[in-house]
C-alpha cells in the first residue's frame, strides 16, 4: 500500500496539470537537495508507542506483495492487507533519514499524522501532513504551499484537493506504480513520500 502511494507520489499528474504553469517547477540544480530535505520528516502524533526506529525508504508488509490482486473496490481488503508486519525489513535502508530526527513507529490500527519534509520548489516551500489509520492513508493535507501571489493561490486551491484525491484513489486501485505523462517536479509528492518514510509506513 505504501508503494502504491509512493508510485502515485512519483507520477502524480493532477498537480502537474495545475502547477506546471509555474509553481512546481523544481530546481533542476544539483540533484539531491530536495532529497536531503525529505529526510527531515517527522512524526507529529502517533497512536502507538514507538517500537522500532524506521528508516526512510524501508518497509515490509503483506500488502506489498505485488501479486496480490484486489478489485478497485477493496474497502475491506485494505484492512486485511494492511496488517502491519512486526518485523522491520532486514534490508532496511538508513537512507537519508536521521534516526534521531525521525523516530517512527510500527504502523498500527491507531491513527497517526505525519508531517512531510518541507520541499522547496522554485516558487516556495511545500509541506504536507499525511494521516494514516490502520495502515491506510486516510488524508493528505498541505500545511504549506506557495501562495505569495494570487495566481499561486488559485492554482493551489484547486491542486490540493486533487493531490489528496489521487493519493487516496491510487491506494484503492492497488497498483505499484502509475505510468503517465508527467513532466515536472513535484515537491508535494516528495513531501508525501518523506512523511511515509518517517512513519515507517507499511500497509
Amino acid at each position, binding site marked *: 500500500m505504501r508503494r502504491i502511494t509512493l508510485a502515485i507520489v512519483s507520477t502524480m499528474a493532477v498537480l502537474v496539470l495545475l502547477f506546471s504553469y509555474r509553481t512546481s517547477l523544481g530546481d533542476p540544480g544539483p540533484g539531491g537537495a530536495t532529497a536531503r530535505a525529505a529526510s527531515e520528516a517527522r512524526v507529529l502524533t502517533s497512536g502507538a508507542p514507538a517500537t522500532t526506529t524506521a528508516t526512510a525508504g524501508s518497509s515490509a508488509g503483506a500488502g506489498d*506483495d505485488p501479486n496480490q490482486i484486489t478489485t478497485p473496490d477493496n474497502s475491506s481488503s485494505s484492512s486485511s492487507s494492511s496488517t502491519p508486519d512486526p518485523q522491520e525489513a532486514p534490508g532496511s535502508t538508513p537512507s537519508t533519514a536521521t534516526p534521531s530526527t525521525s523516530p517512527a513507529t510500527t504502523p498500527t490500527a491507531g491513527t497517526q499524522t505525519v508531517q512531510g519534509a518541507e520541499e522547496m520548489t522554485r516558487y516556495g516551500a511545500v509541506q504536507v501532513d499525511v494521516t494514516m489509520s490502520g495502515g491506510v492513508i486516510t488524508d493528505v493535507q498541505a500545511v504549506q504551499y506557495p501562495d505569495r501571489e494570487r495566481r499561486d493561490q488559485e492554482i493551489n486551491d484547486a491542486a490540493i484537493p486533487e493531490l489528496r484525491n489521487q493519493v487516496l484513489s491510487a491506494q484503492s486501485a492497488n497498483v505499484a506504480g*502509475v505510468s503517465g*505523462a508527467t513532466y*515536472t517536479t513535484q515537491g508535494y509528492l516528495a513531501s508525501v513520500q518523506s512523511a511515509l518514510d518517517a512513519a515507517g509506513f507499511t500497509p
Partner: protein
Amino acid sequence: MTAAVAADVRMIMGLPFSLHLGKDTENPAQITIEAMWAELCRYDRIFSTYRPDSQVMRHFRGELDLSPCDRTVSEVLALANTARAQTRGAFDINGPDGPDPSGIVKGWAAQTAFARTGIEHGYLNAGGDIVLAGPDRCWRIGIEHPADPRGLLTVVEIGSGAIATSGRAHRGNHLWDPRTKTLSDTLWQATVIGPDLVWADILATAAAVTGPELFRTIDWPDCYHALLCDQEGVAYATPGAPHYFAIDIAPLALCFL
C-alpha cells in the same frame, strides 16, 4: 509472500525519480539506491539542458567536439538519429528552440542506470516512465486516464521490461510535432510496453504525436505493445497489448491496430 521493500525518491533532471526494490539483491538496498542516484546524477551533469556548462550544451553551442565528451553523448545522439529515422520523423530531438535531447535522455538514463545497477527485483519510475525487473507479471502498473488523472485507464502486469506513457501534455494541450514543425493539438495518450525503456519512450512519444497513423507509417517492432487512447477513452491497441492487462480490470473496448 511478503517482500521487503525499500523505496526512495529523488529529484533529478527536474523529474521525480523513484526507485522501488522488491527484495534484497546481493547489495544492501541502500547501496543500490545510492548507486542509482549517483549514476543518474552523472548523466544529468552530462546532458542537462539547464546547465550551460554541461557537455551537451557546450557541444550544441559548438564549443566542444564530440570526441572529448563522455562516450554516452555520442551514444545518445546516435540513438536520437536512429529514433528519428525509425519513426519517420515523428520523434525528433530538434524542437522549436533547437536541439533538446531531454526527450530521449530521460528514458535512456533510466534504462541505462537501471541496467548498470543490476537490480533483479524492483523498478525505477522516471516521472511516469518505468523500467522494471522481476518475475513474470509481478508488478501491477496503472495507466493514467487521459481525461481523468484521478482515475486509471487500465492496469497492466509486467515482470521485467518497461512502460512509457506520453501525450496530452499536462502543461497544456500542445505537443510539438516535428514533422510539421508546429504545435499540434494532439488528443492522443500513448502507452508503450516493451523490453527497453529507451524505445518504449521513443515510440510512445511518436505515437502521441501521430495517433494510430504511426502504425501504418513505420515499421513497428513486434516486441513493443501499444495502447492508444483518445480523450473520450476510445482505445486502440496492438494485438499483443491485452496480454498485459490485469485480469481483474474490466477490459477496454479495444480497436486493434
